[in-house]
């Protein structure tokens, strides 16, 4: 009897696991992040959005090189030039490589409006790694190569120009550096505040918890935009561009952390009741160990998801503040600053291309949300 059961028990549980299916075995030893990645990969829109985001951020990183013109470029003789078309065909037939025609500006003698025609006699093929204005890459290396460009004499305003004759595409690319990073910076600040304050609140409980929760409620009961306005109006106008930039991120994250702190708190409260946390307590693990080894890793994925979803709110915040003239100000270039130029009806009616930064704002916010969606689905790979 004893013998029989002795042999029976060890052989019992393993029959389904011992199948040497390599694919399955790898999933058995896959960590949380691997499982999340596998699940995320199945969400096709999210993967596409992630790719688009990657491209956008790469553009922000390499903006000096990608932009056809440098930030300081302006040519008032080409102010309010409409977007130039890329051509593949001309009277001489089909060209494998796109080119642009030269731009000819004329002032209408009656309205004094400037209008531009393509000068069909001048063809400027698009050059890769074209020599253009010199710039300092990342403020360090002196370079004069741009990803695309045309030979000197021609112009390449793919999204048109503004009132001072500055290339809008170049400015949007430069602006992405500010607009996209202000979200990241603001979110990291919120993350720090939210995580620490939320953890304190959930961990200590009692009157500390009550105090923090009431404080959050008060902060959240202020209407967001007026609060932002008030705070940013308080930033001294004597500040440098960089200081303003940092000031605005702080303003944005002052509200951003509250939602996160609440999430962290409720997660800690519920996870503390989980049996695995009790089990750790019962084997003699210290409170700090339970916090760092059991509680924090359990909701980190959720926190990352909510952070992803918070970034677009920050981007919108920056854009709206700058649009209202209370955020970043020229000479800093951000999408919001660019949009400020398209503030009145007249500009929009005559120069609609000035709205193109808005397209980038919308695109960015959308792809962030799609990606956040996919991440949210993937965040809990252990769902039963």
């Amino acid at each position, binding site marked *: *009897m004893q013998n029989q*059961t002795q042999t*029976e028990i060890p052989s*019992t*549980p393993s029959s*389904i696991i011992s199948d040497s299916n390599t694919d399955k075995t790898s999933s058995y030893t896959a960590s949380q992040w691997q499982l999340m990645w596998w699940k995320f990969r199945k969400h096709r829109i999210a993967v596409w959005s992630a790719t688009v985001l990657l491209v956008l951020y790469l553009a922000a990183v390499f903006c000096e090189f990608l932009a056809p013109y440098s930030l300081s470029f302006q040519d008032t003789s080409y102010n309010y030039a409409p977007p130039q078309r890329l051509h593949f065909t001309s009277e001489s037939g089909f060209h494998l490589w796109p080119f642009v025609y030269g731009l000819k500006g004329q002032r209408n003698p009656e309205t004094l409006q400037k209008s531009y025609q393509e000068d069909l006699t001048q063809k400027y093929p698009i050059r890769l790694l074209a020599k253009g204005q010199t710039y300092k890459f990342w403020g360090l290396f002196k370079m004069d190569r741009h990803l695309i460009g045309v030979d000197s004499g021609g112009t390449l305003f793919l999204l048109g120009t503004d009132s001072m004759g500055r290339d809008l595409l170049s400015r949007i690319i430069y602006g992405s550096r500010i607009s996209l990073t202000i979200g990241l910076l603001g979110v990291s600040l919120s993350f720090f505040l939210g995580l620490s304050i939320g953890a304190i609140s959930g961990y200590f409980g009692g009157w500390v918890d009550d105090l923090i929760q009431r404080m959050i409620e008060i902060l959240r009961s202020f209407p967001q935009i007026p609060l932002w306005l008030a705070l940013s109006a308080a930033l001294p106008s004597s500040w440098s561009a960089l200081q303003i930039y940092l000031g605005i991120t702080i303003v944005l994250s002052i509200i951003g952390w509250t939602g996160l702190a609440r999430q962290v708190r409720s997660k800690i409260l519920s996870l503390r009741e989980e049996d695995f946390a009790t089990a750790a307590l019962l084997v003699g693990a210290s409170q700090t160990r339970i916090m760092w080894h059991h509680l924090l890793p359990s909701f980190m994925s959720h926190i990352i998801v909510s952070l992803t979803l918070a970034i677009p709110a920050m981007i919108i915040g920056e854009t709206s503040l700058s649009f209202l003239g209370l955020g970043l100000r020229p000479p800093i270039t951000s999408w919001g600053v660019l949009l400020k130029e398209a503030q009145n009806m007249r500009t929009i009616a005559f120069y609609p291309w000035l709205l193109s930064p808005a397209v980038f704002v919308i695109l960015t916010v959308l792809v962030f949300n799609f990606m956040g969606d996919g991440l949210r689905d993937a965040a809990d790979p252990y769902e039963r």
Partner: protein
Amino acid sequence: MKNILLSIQNLQTHFFLDEGVVRAVNGVNLEIPLGETMSIVGESGCGKSVTAFSILQLIASPGRIVSGEIVFHRPNSDNVVLTNHKERDKRIRAIRGSEIAMIFQEPMSSLSPVHTVGNQIMESLILHTNLGKTEARLQVIDMMQRVGIPNPVQRFNQYPHQMSGGLRQRAIIAMALICRPKLLIADEPTTALDVTIQAQILQLMRDLQTEFEMSILLITHDLGVVAEMANQVAVMYMGKIVEQAEINELLTNPQHPYTQALLESVPRRGQQPKAKLKVISGSVPNPFEQITGCPFHPRCEEFSDGLCNQGDPPVPFQFRDNQHVACFIREKDKTQ
């Protein structure tokens, strides 16, 4: 010859997942006699609940009824082939909740927290009949009385959270029975309840069955509950019925090795204390796996190489008058 209320023929319900196809129900044949209780027993994942949902055409994507026929033989009316209708068909919707009703395991999630219990019971009555509100209300209160809810007039206006688990389960039974169904499908109706409450609910279901002359399809993992309730039992394993018999036959004289092991692995009173329990070695195989031969052979004690692990799975054969077994070994012994 008994009258048959519902017959299931070669039902196959599969779930098409990224990881592969789960053959949750894989060729089930079953007949539910009129006015009796048929019980499907099995461990989790054996396909017993999916069978029930298939009857009501409630299989959501990625699941699909791949083949098979489910015929509802209505006592005083024409037959309906349920499998010919889609989930949202008018015909099915008219039958679901009125002629075939279902009660679920979880008493809290089957009731909406924002409507009063009385209104929820009344809803299906108004949906399936053309009774007026006052008339319907009287019927609901009458039904609440019958299922043993005290003070039905006051309880009519209460919300689910104001009731105990036992009362909620009674309310759910009232909701299922309000249209006088011919077939009641009960999926683990007492699993979430305490034993003393479970005994009350089982008693109630038996009483109401006699009163309303309905058939019950009872789905459970608990062989004790089956012994209390069923006339006929079908034991399921990996989407197939491995043994079907009259209840006392099955309990006293089980034939399939799986049924035998299942019965012996339950601890009982009066057993020699601390004796080893019989175990079924291993655990239920991965649902994506396709096992050749008898699906139970990797865990079977009587496994015979060359007989059990080859070819198609065994088909139930008549072992005794009222007992069908799907086992190669029993079949061989019988024919010899």
